């Protein structure tokens, strides 16, 4: 008997089961947490593509999320269907990434990180004063509601987020097995050698950056379809950076399964610590520090070290050996 190809079957099975959840009547709070999980998953996967595989410590996911959210909200205010607003939001995030790419790619390492960190702050200030359409729901040109969502149920939102997360994971899977992935890993390992081996560093970083901005944008916009109010402080809030960063670092940067493990942990922590307010950030911070110090490769690195991935095969072989004996 041949072992079924677990690596291809398992993800499809998980996807089908997750897609069936809303139909078998699981509690609404579960759907809500799973929705958050999918959004974090998409964000963390893209953050990992940049930090773990391209060597870009990008500290501006909240710029992409906020821009996409505002595009969605303002778009629906002026009569755009929200489905169009979702794509438009992601496109605006990608265009923003394109515009900032030239100046920020001139900086390397930590300087790139700092350079990207200031961008969302600028955008936050801008959206505090800018009021492109008349019906801000609070303050002078600050907050907007996403409208025109009638009939788009929680189940639909859940499936949308699931689709985005699955697409993000699949995209990284494809990229890593392509010529692009090889080039990106080369850049991460050694920029000088990559350049002298013929890799056009600027172009590859840009492609990776645009893909990440687009997917982060669409994930952010999907969040604001579920939570249809956006303000500068929330849309450009730093938690949009901390969530994917924590998920990636805890799970294991530069591994494919890392962001998935990490996003699950971050979501579960949010669920556990929901009643503790500011303490939850404190506790998450401590966990982050402990992981960075004790497990520099994250949980995925630990699992690889102890050989956990070969466990199913070992169990199967052990079972087979026993059957043969009896």
């Amino acid at each position, binding site marked *: 008997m041949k072992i079924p190809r677990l690596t291809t079957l398992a993800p499809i099975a998980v996807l089908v089961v997750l897609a069936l959840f809303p139909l078998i009547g699981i509690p609404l709070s579960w759907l809500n947490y799973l929705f958050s999980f999918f959004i974090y998953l998409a964000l963390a996967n893209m953050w990992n593509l940049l930090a773990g595989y391209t060597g870009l410590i990008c500290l501006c996911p909240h710029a992409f999320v906020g821009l996409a959210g505002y595009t969605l909200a303002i778009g629906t205010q002026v009569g755009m269907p929200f489905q169009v607003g979702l794509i438009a939001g992601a496109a605006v995030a990608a265009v923003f990434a394109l515009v900032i790419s030239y100046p920020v790619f001139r900086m390397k390492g930590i300087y790139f990180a700092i350079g990207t960190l200031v961008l969302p702050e600028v955008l936050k200030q801008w959206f505090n004063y800018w009021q492109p359409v008349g019906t801000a729901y609070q303050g002078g040109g600050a907050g907007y509601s996403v409208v025109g969502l009638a009939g788009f149920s929680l189940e639909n939102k859940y499936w949308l987020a699931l689709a985005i997360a699955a697409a993000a994971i699949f995209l990284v899977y494809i990229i890593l097995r392509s*010529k692009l992935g090889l080039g990106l890993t*080369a850049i991460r390992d050694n920029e*000088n*050698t990559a350049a*002298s*081996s*013929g*890799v*056009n560093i600027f172009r590859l970083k840009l492609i990776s950056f645009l893909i990440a901005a687009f997917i982060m944008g669409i994930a952010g916009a999907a969040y604001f379809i579920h939570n249809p109010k956006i303000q500068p402080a929330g849309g450009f809030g730093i938690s949009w950076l901390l969530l994917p960063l924590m998920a990636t670092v805890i799970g294991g940067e530069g591994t494919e399964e890392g962001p998935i493990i990490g996003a699950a942990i971050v979501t579960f922590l949010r669920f556990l610590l929901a009643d503790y307010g500011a303490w939850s950030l404190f506790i998450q911070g401590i966990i982050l520090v402990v992981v960075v110090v004790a497990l520099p490769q994250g949980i995925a690195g630990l699992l690889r070290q102890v050989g956990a991935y070969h466990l199913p095969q070992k169990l199967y072989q052990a079972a087979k050996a026993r059957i043969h004996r009896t």
Partner: protein
Amino acid sequence: MSDTAVLSVEGVSKSFGGIHAIQNVTFEVRAGEVLGLMGPNGAGKTTLLNLIAGVYRPDSGRILFQGKNITRYPPHKICHVGIARTFQIPQPFTDLMVRDNLMVAAKYGNKRGVTLELDEILDLVDLLKQKDTTAGDLATVSLKRLELARALASNPTLILLDEVAAGSTEAELPRILDITKQVRKMGKTIILVEHVMKVMVEAVDRIVVIDKGEKIAEGTPGEVMEDEKVLAAYFG
């Protein structure tokens, strides 16, 4: 070997904040030859390689490759036209396997249509058995060879070798000489920067000597070794 110049460096200068690293250096590399680049520590040999490789842009002068002006090309375009280089201190893709280190150069650097057998290159530099090893786990001697293998993988016409023998023991030298000769047999033109005099004398056709950023001598190894300026630069 023919007399046509593959690479012409014409009056190239480069300063770093008032320090004249390279001053008005002119030389040619002919098709199929091995040109040695020699000079005391800090003479500017590596700077010169970096100027050719596109890492630095010259302040003045120009660099022609096969008649094409490549003076302001960035490093990846230099690789695309057919110039590959090794680094003095090995700079591998540490997390990639040995074979994938070559794959990067083969997929991104080789724009000249011929696909190379990466295993043959690995065999040439004695790394075939370690092709699935992570490059970061290799010993220094092997890393030096990986540098050469990666450079070859982009199928270059001209290859810039920055001290391939440095750090090797006396016993390893013959093998390095042998590898250099085989690379030459593949039809590659080579610029060899080397401190190890034995390698220099045995492997090269001509030598260009630079000191304090200026070319002070050029000729066959025999001619250069008897040149007064060269002796003065080395022995004071």
